[in-house]
């Protein structure tokens, strides 16, 4: 019961903090003070208090986009184990539901973007769909590898099965998986080198351009949902990359929180020392990630 409460508190409250940490890390690299760690929370509160403007050309799809996206992400967050703790909801085959909840949210985001009729948003939708096609196999190869190792189709079992010992027995596959999943994490969450979440240049954006027409609370849901997606995918990544176990329940929660903070710092460092990729180069890197996770699977099936 306590674990469930902690699980829900973390998935609801912690995601914006990751963005704050990424921002602070980038500021440190640039020699600036940077916005406070809690700035993303302030932004969300500000947005929720604002009114909304809806274009006359849009339909219910445009309004449904942010809500469906946030709801789908929330459900996905309840399926994922955080650290060594099983998820509140889990059943056999929930990994498929997990993957397609993100598919559902993407569908609604792109549909809402197309609903505006703006040429920018159409461009962004085309890019998003193209790139996510390439990300999906990576995720599935990774999940299949984990399912095979843990002999289970439940996310909770698959992800809590990992332990420091597995790095000794199946180190090569784990290393490939970590590489592939880190690329997926950056691509799915529109981070540099794939997309620049801070840019104002609408012609270069992928994800941000699709939400240009949203405002007020709806935009707040989008930002919150995006932060939660980063949190959820980050939690999966950390389960594989850092399967440390302390033995005590509270200790494991501590390890998880520290691990997520480290991940945010790592993303901040990557964003600080790299430039964005040219748009036509992105598929190449995504395919490389697919190949990495495919090899990880081959090594495990062998």
């Amino acid at each position, binding site marked *: 019961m306590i674990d469930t409460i902690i699980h829900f508190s973390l998935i609801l409250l912690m995601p914006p903090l990751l963005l704050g940490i990424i921002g602070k890390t980038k500021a440190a690299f640039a020699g600036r003070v940077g916005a406070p760690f809690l700035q993303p929370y302030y932004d969300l509160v500000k947005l929720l208090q604002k009114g909304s403007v809806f274009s006359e050309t849009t339909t219910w799809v445009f309004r449904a986009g942010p809500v469906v996206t946030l709801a789908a992400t929330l459900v996905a967050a309840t399926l994922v184990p955080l650290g060594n703790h099983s998820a509140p909801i889990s059943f056999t085959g929930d990994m498929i539901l997990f993957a397609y909840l993100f598919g559902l949210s993407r569908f609604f985001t792109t549909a809402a973007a197309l609903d505006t009729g703006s*040429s920018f948003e159409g461009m962004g939708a085309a890019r998003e769909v193209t790139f996510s096609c390439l990300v999906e196999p990576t995720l599935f190869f990774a999940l299949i590898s984990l399912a095979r190792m843990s002999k289970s189709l439940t996310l909770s079992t698959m992800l809590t099965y990992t332990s420091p010992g597995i790095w000794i027995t199946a180190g090569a596959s784990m290393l490939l998986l970590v590489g592939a999943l880190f690329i997926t994490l950056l691509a799915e969450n529109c981070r540099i080198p794939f997309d620049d979440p801070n840019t104002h240049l609408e012609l*270069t954006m992928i994800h941000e351009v699709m939400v240009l027409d949203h405002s007020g609370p709806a935009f707040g849901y989008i930002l919150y949902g995006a932060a939660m997606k980063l949190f959820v995918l980050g939690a999966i990544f950390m389960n594989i990359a850092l399967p440390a176990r302390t033995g005590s329940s509270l200790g494991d929660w501590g390890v998880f929180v520290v691990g997520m903070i480290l991940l945010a710092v790592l993303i901040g460092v990557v964003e600080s020392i790299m*430039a964005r*990729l040219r748009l036509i180069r992105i598929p190449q890197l995504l395919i490389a990630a697919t190949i990495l996770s495919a090899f990880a699977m081959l090594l495990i099936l062998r």
Partner: protein
Amino acid sequence: MSDLLTFYNGSALPIGDIPAPGPDQFLQTLGDHLDRGWRVISYFGVPEGDKTALFCLLAARSEGQLGMMQTLATHGHFPSLSRHYPQLQLFEREIAEQCGLVMDDHPWYKPVRFHHAFVPDRDGWGRSSSEQIRVGVMDFYQVAGEEVHEVAVGPVHAGIIEPGHFRFQCHGEQVFHLEISLGYQHRGIEQMLIGGPHPRSLFQMETIAGDTTIGHGQAYCMVMEALAGVRPTAAAQALRGIALELERLANHTGDLGAIAGDVGYLPTASFCGRIRGDFLNMSAVLCGSRFGRGLLCPGGTIFDLDKELRSGLLKSLDTARSELTTAIDLLWSTPSVMGRLEGTGAVPHEFAAELGLVGPAARASGLKRDVRQDFPFGIFRMVHIPVVTGYHGDVCARTVIRWQEAQKSLDFATEQLRQFPGGGHRVAVPAIGANRCAVALTEGWRGEICHVALTDANSRFRRYKITDPSFHNWQGLAMALRGQQISDFPLCNKSFNLSYCGFDL
């Protein structure tokens, strides 16, 4: 060559001495010279009654010579040469718009800035003078086809930049064609100057393009000095040179940072933003304004530069140089940045020459064009700054050129501060001459700035023509995008960093 009056940068001549052949001979001479490698620096009309006097200023490839001629268009029509010489197209459209002179057979006959002609009841497009002209309303070039889509950007942009409208004809991510439509910043500066010089003229000059205060200000001062027949002192020349190079340094630093920012590379973007501020503060040391306002005046400079300020500036320059070097070296040593810059938005040498590009954009494409070298003025008659040229003409070349020019400017400014000449900084300027034509070219940080003044019998401006480097270079940006990815447009745009208000006047 008697069909052109040749002279040097910064001189004034009687208008009567300028050869005035008939239109046919005028066009023949123009074509002949362009074929021989001359290029057009300025080409403008002076509407008078139902006639239009046309003046053309050409530059020789070498020898530092400028050539000028004039003709009189007596009908409302004049033949266009743009089909054969693309560098003329914008000049001819401008003449049509300002003087209401219809340019026959112009391949791209559209308004430039969307305003009425200087004289009422004449219009290059047959619009009545009561009709309100709306900026940006015209027939854009369109590519037809099922899979072609059009993307319109602006005039209101997401960043804090000037307004301009861009139309892309795209096939997926690939750009077939980009058309740029400006005019939103038109303030009518050239109209205001007719009948001048007014007391406020100098201040208007300083704000033609707010980031090129010294470049335009110095050109105006040179025009006034040429018309009055005075020469500024050595100290004034040196001070103007230092100010011009500080302006170049501030803007090049800002651009290098902005290019880094556009590819998402934060460290250089942040450092350059601050170092640009340091250079602006050095301009403030000269005259109290970070943008160099109120430093120049015809006859010299308003402020002097004493020894204490000079040693302070030398110290700041030294610090800025080492910091800038560190920040920029990060760019070259980061493969992901270089991968983004190299091969993006290339303008081949031939295109650049044909379009008549100027400034860093031209030099990046391998054109050796620099007013400081080709038509030396002021301090640059005595001290030469080496010209840096690139080869590939891509974003990377334009970035490298900016950095190399910044280094040369640092050397120059340091040297000038060390050996600053003594003597006064300002001489009195007598009344300006009547019926004269003065030409002044300076090398602003964007490139060649050209001011031409024609005075009437009462020594007032009959016409004052300003050509900002952006006027030559916008077409270069459009060509740089051909066949490129639309997502690379912001980066290409930044690597040119052209002025909207300098173009719109």
